[in-house]
């Protein structure tokens, strides 16, 4: 039973993490290849503050705050450069983050931080907290999608120049997407740290960023149910098939490439093409 509880918690945190990237890349169209950085910031904040004696629940908002603040700063890059270069920039931020962690002893350096814990919850209790947080974030995403913010994000993702001619302050909306998405990644990171009770620089590197991007793309960029299902399944794979854990970059990177090449709409796109072949794009909203 312990194994199932732990797996469910892992899956739930992955779904939360994928949903946070989906907000930036799926809803608003801003690619990020460094999203694991914000998972890491959230994890390190909660770990360090926890060691300093702060209660677990008090560290959660602080994890989100710092991740979101740094996320907004990284988002500034999206105002200056277009898609392909933004991918390179965010990737660079990811390498920078891991590089800094490795160098700093007070951040645990190469060895990482172990013995994190003291969430005060039982394993089952913690699983319920993770599931509840993920459900709340999924609901938030669905709400955003249905709000005017979602409509603007959708337009920015398709054609930001035209959005400007419609009077939309595109830079502020992009920053909002980055701030919200990275803050939620910080929340996922805080849960992650308390779940594994150990974090190190390798947990938040390029491989993790590619993995989460592949979850979003496989699920169908922008589709909340699609991303939930894809993230849940893909995060469980390494537990079921040992070798996938060993070749993560190859497997998730390959998946990412294949999806981009053959079905840019992801699973959600495949499904709607299958069930509704003529009218795929004629819907009011995705």
């Amino acid at each position, binding site marked *: 039973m312990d194994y199932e509880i732990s797996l469910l918690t892992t899956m739930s945190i992955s779904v939360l993490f994928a949903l946070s990237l989906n907000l930036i890349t799926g809803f608003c169209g801003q690619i990020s290849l460094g999203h694991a950085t914000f998972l890491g910031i959230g994890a390190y904040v909660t770990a360090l503050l926890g060691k300093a004696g702060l209660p677990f629940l008090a560290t959660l908002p602080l994890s989100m705050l710092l991740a979101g603040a740094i996320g907004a700063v990284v988002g500034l890059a999206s105002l200056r450069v277009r898609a392909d270069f933004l991918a390179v920039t965010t990737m660079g931020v990811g390498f920078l983050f891991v590089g800094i962690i490795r160098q700093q002893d007070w951040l645990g350096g190469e060895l990482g931080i172990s013995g994190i814990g003291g969430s005060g919850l039982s394993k089952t209790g913690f699983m319920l907290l993770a599931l509840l947080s993920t459900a709340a974030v999924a609901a938030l995403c669905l709400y955003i999608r249905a*709000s*005017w*913010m979602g409509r603007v994000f959708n337009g920015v993702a*398709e054609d930001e120049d*035209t959005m*400007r*001619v419609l*009077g939309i302050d595109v830079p502020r909306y992009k920053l909002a997407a980055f701030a919200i998405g990275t803050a939620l990644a910080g929340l996922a990171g805080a849960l992650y740290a308390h779940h594994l009770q150990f974090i190190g620089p390798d947990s938040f590197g390029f491989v993790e960023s590619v993995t989460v991007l592949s979850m979003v793309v496989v699920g169908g960029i922008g589709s909340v149910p699609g991303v939930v299902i894809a993230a849940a399944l893909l995060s469980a794979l390494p537990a079921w098939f040992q070798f996938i854990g060993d070749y993560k970059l190859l497997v998730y990177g390959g998946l990412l490439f294949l999806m981009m090449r053959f079905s840019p709409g992801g699973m959600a796109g495949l499904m709607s093409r299958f069930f509704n072949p003529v009218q795929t794009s004629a*819907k009011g*909203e995705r």
Partner: protein
Amino acid sequence: MNMTDQAVAPLLRIADVTVRFGGLTAIDRVSFDVHPGELLGLIGPNGAGKTTMMRSITGVVRTTAGGVELDGVRLDGMPIERRIRCGLSLSQQLVKPFRGMSLLANVALAAGSAKTSSPLKSLLHLSRREELAVAREMLERVGIAQHAEQNPAIQPLGILKRLEMARALALRPRVLLLDEPLAGLNSKEANALSSTIQDINRQGVTIVLIEHNLGEVMRICSRLVVLDNGRKIAEGAPRVVMNDPAVRAAYLGGDTLASAAADQSDTTTACAALGGQHA
């Protein structure tokens, strides 16, 4: 009659605007005023710089020199979206509908500008009932309401041009900038839409109209500005401007003849309009 016009402060003032693209001077020290309530025609042969002029007013292209003022407020240095929120609105020559949504949703997105002025505000609003109603009204106005639920990806140019105009109208601008709204329409549709443009103008919206269909321009515009090779070559009442030898030469003579011949439909409309004036 011009005396009273000049007594009123201009709503839009273009002062010595120059736009260069690398070595090419697309706009060369052009100045003109747009008075409140008027329907100004901005005409000239292909490549004269009309579109570039409109894009520099809205900030889509940056001016190399000169300034633009709306109701006494300098727009230079402002990003596009702020200029739009000051009361400008642009219906572009190259149509760019959002293909992932219906015609109605396209226009509703523009109609929601009050709810999208900041991310926080947009997050607090869900309903778009009012915006859909406005959007339907705008689509009706430009005569394409029967296509409201369809996707722009499958529409011909004539419908997309009108969609573009409906979207610009939905912003409820003080100055509406229309870049070839009649393109892709047959003569009956063009006639109906230019009458609509005239109606909109009579309801108080100041309009700058770029159009190659000179017959319709002569019918509805109260004043014309003519560009050629990036320079303003004439300005004034339509009949006077059309009889100006410099304007006739720009349309028919010299090096523009070759490029005009390439685009035959434009040449024939231009000739027809000028001929009509002559007779």
